[in-house]
């Protein structure tokens, strides 16, 4: 197992954001993390990569417990992430942005060797031709690719992707899904939060579903999509409608 999350609990004041979350991620898989808005998905990412320390539970990465480690230390150990709202360094070039990932990642490159890594990852996400451009000139889809490149430049063993498909058009989604598959085939394990359901159900080996901070389902996409608990989390409680219809009939 590349990642083990055991009984993780996170509170914000009176709000229980994560309750006793437990799952494992085998090396080489793509694991989709699903759930309605506010379910705790990004919070779980933040706990895994050290932005938040959990109140309870433990996180083990490549056999080493990393619970409570600061984010930079988690990054050095080979765990990288992308953010839902991308914040590239707009006044730098695309290549320089990717270099930042290389400098602060697992291999902690010097500037000279970071440039080599940057060129490699930009090629992998299809941004080679944009390398010398100022980042602010990129469109949304290109910025999302750069976000991915920056994370890849950290040479991670495990990559956390937070809604990399959001805001993309169908063609761009198909391209991004292909890129994600290729990254996995190159040996990077992936945990991805995604709302574009057709795509995530298609690309994931397994999926997890969080609802109100509780893991309510886990399994292959087809199984999970048919799980009554999951259907209820997305479509709502059917009992109320049954009651209303019964009142009408009576």
């Amino acid at each position, binding site marked *: 197992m590349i990642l083990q999350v055991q009984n993780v609990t996170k509170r914000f004041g009176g709000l229980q954001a994560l309750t006793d979350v437990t799952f494992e991620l085998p090396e080489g898989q793509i694991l989709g993390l699903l759930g309605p*808005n506010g379910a705790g998905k990004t919070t779980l990412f933040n706990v895994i990569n050290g932005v938040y320390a959990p109140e309870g539970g433990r996180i083990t990465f490549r056999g080493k417990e990393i619970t409570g480690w600061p984010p930079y230390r988690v990054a050095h150990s080979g765990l990288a992430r992308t953010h839902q709202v991308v914040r590239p360094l707009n006044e730098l070039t695309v290549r320089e942005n990717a270099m930042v990932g290389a400098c602060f990642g697992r291999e902690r490159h010097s500037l000279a060797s970071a440039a080599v890594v940057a060129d490699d990852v930009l090629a992998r996400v299809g941004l080679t031709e944009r390398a010398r451009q100022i980042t602010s000139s990129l469109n949304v889809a290109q910025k999302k690719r750069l976000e991915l490149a920056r994370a890849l430049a950290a040479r991670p063993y495990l990559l956390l992707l937070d809604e990399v498909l959001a805001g993309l*058009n169908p063609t761009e989604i198909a391209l991004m899904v292909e890129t994600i598959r290729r990254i996995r085939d190159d040996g990077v394990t992936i945990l991805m939060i995604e709302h574009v*359901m057709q*795509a995530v159900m298609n690309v994931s080996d397994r999926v997890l579903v969080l609802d109100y901070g509780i893991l309510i389902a886990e399994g292959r996409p087809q199984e999970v999509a048919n799980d009554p608990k999951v259907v209820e989390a*997305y479509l709502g*409680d059917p009992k109320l409608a049954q*009651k209303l219809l019964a009142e009408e009939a009576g």
Partner: protein
Amino acid sequence: MVLLEVHDIVSGYGEVQILWGVSLRLEQGKLTTLVGSNGVGKTTLLRTVMGLLRPWRGAISFRGQDITRLAPHDRASAGLVLVPEGRQLFTEMSVYENLEMGAISRRARPHWKRNIERVFDLLPRLKERRNQKAGTLSGGEQQMLAVGRGLMAEPEVLMFDELSLGLSPVLSLNLFETLQHLKAEGMTMLLVEQNVHMALAVSDYAYVLAEGKIWMEGEARPLAKRAEVRQAYLGI
């Protein structure tokens, strides 16, 4: 008769496109629902219909007139009224004052006394609480007040964004019964609601939005039995 028609709307925020060509029609006197999972663009569509967001492409017509360029307050004066998500009440004002504020448009102002009686008949709890500050009401009462304030605007089309969000089952049921009552009176309504079963049970016609497009549409109750609705939410 089609009262409101949304034609091929493309819309979004900044560079991010949310709606990819959405068309729908509201028949006069019918309750139409728009369902779909979080982040799919339901609120964006309502905001576009109200004129709070300018579409990148497409047109909206009301009673056969193109209103795509009309300002939000002019749309409200024409009878398009939105009960927004999260209620957006004037919390420091009383229930009564909030209802008065609903009648601020030139369309509704002359009839506010008659309409407030009508709202009190429909939602008697508001009458009991008339002098209480809106911010001190329970969640369910606040939602009732938001609906009451919408009615004070004398809507020709009443739109609801997440009617039952955060409410208990009993309170939700009450609100849906109010909707059925309004439907019986002939009100034209557009309901956005996270509980799909409920939305399909109370509505005449339904549109399912997925990934910024209309995924399917049809008579609401038959739609409730179709597997494609689940697919729209869960992808497979």
